[in-house]
């Protein structure tokens, strides 16, 4: 891992169009600003990791385990699946 030391208001360029700026340091908290193209999603790592884990888990859902509709209506056993 590349390690750089920065002071408040100093920044780092990642490639030509991503800038990471240290805005403020208070005790254990660091406020960071990110300038990136709209096509680059930026997320807190722990939230991103949770969504990856949840998507992986969800992808294991089997058709036979699908619950009845939440409203309690029973579905008919229609086998043909239409594309919506």
């Amino acid at each position, binding site marked *: 891992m590349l390690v750089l030391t920065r002071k408040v208001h100093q920044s780092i360029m990642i490639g030509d169009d991503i800038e990471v700026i240290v805005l403020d340091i208070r005790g254990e908290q660091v406020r960071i600003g990110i300038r990136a193209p709209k096509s680059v999603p930026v997320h807190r790592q722990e939230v991103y990791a949770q969504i990856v884990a949840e998507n992986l888990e969800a*992808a294991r859902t089997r058709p036979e*385990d699908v619950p009845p509709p939440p409203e309690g209506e029973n579905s008919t056993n229609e086998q043909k*699946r239409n594309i919506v």
Partner: protein
Amino acid sequence: MKIPTTRFGEIKVEEKQIIDIPGGLVGFPQCERFVLLEHLKESPYRWLQSVDEPSVAFLVINPSSIVKDYAIRLNPEVAESLYLSEETLKMVLAIVSVPLGKSKEATVNLVAPIVVNSEKRLGKQLILEDTDWSIHHRIYGTSEEVRSVEEKAA
């Protein structure tokens, strides 16, 4: 075109029915093309089946059918990337996860909805920041109710 699927066998898909999700779903960058299938007639559940990976399919539901006041604020960047305006026909899908053999423990992920421009069939999975919604929102009863039942049983 015909596409193989692990869960539903071979299905016939027309090009115009494909939903493009550039960059794929979170954790599934290789899955950029999907089709939406009915689960059963009248069921609010649907399957978002990958066109490229036969084994990848997500059970999805309109989150508003689970949580009446569910609403997401699209930021301008996302709206622009999906060519969405106020008038554009769009749909919001939330991914449902059902543990093996435990239908009643189904949860829905309200933090990472998939927003689709229905006209262009172009979608994206969002990750909502600073939200009170849960990644594991119980569809059948809250976890508190489940806990109180368990306590009574104990």
